[in-house]
């Protein structure tokens, strides 16, 4: 994983993290967030992006928890029929 360091510009200080590297990473993160679709590409402050990212990650993890509860309930009721099997098969293809 030290290859990431080698991608940064090692001009005078070795492994110096440049400002534009951070800015680029932050904007890449911003593009991933759902707000990016509505907020077309004006630059938001880094702290705002980080805040949105934290909230988004928390929301996603919460969704995973809810979904796993749902799946656990469904797995517990073993009324699995061949129709379900066909659906799952189509999902995987």
């Amino acid at each position, binding site marked *: 994983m030290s290859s990431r360091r080698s991608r940064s510009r090692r001009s005078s200080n070795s492994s110096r993290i440049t400002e534009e590297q951070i800015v680029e990473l*932050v904007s890449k993160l911003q593009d*991933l967030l759902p707000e990016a679709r509505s907020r077309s590409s004006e630059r938001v402050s*880094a*702290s705002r992006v980080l805040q949105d990212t934290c909230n988004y990650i928390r929301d996603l993890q919460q969704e995973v928890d809810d*979904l796993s509860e749902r799946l656990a309930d469904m797995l517990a*009721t073993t*009324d699995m029929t061949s129709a379900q099997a066909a659906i799952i098969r189509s999902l995987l293809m």
Partner: protein
Amino acid sequence: MASVPSSSSSSSPSQPKTRKKPGQNSSPPPPPQTKWQTGTQERLYSRRLVDALRATRDRTQVQESVGSRAVKEAADSALALTARGQSRWSRAILFGRNSCRRKLLVKAGGKIRRHRRKQHGAPPVAAAAAEPGVLKEQKVKERLRKLGRLVPGCRKLPAATLLEEAADYVAALELQVRTMRALAEALSAATVSAPEEEETEAVDPIAIAEQGS
């Protein structure tokens, strides 16, 4: 069932080479987040997820019911596996689950440890002065710390690494949510449409799916 390893080796072939060889910086590799959005990853992950869920259900005792935490852990492990250990958070999940954590860390993670030492060896003195302006703000620092707590295994990372890990983690989580939701929808739709067949013996859909594939 046997097709899983072969298909996983063909997905994103450029990723592992570029990461492991630092001399190769001719062209930057494609952003790691898009790999989560290809259909290949979805199929890989859904297959792994189904396998993991089946294993979880088989491991559960007859009297107990499958706990939601077990499902979530299976899903997270499957997700980390699909990442193929290329990101820190995936390694943190996989190593954290395994009981013989020490052995794994020394064997496969020995390389990781060495890299970490290298990174920490060079920057600690220079980083304080060379931080870009935006990182010096207190608010940004706090939020970075919060982010480091959310992403597994990323508490002590420098800012740039943490940002990359977070981006990859967000994309992976989105994939996880999409897949789990699709699976849940499919299962619930099937349950609704066929409520009368309760007296038939429990057909294991996963086994049938694997046989049919």
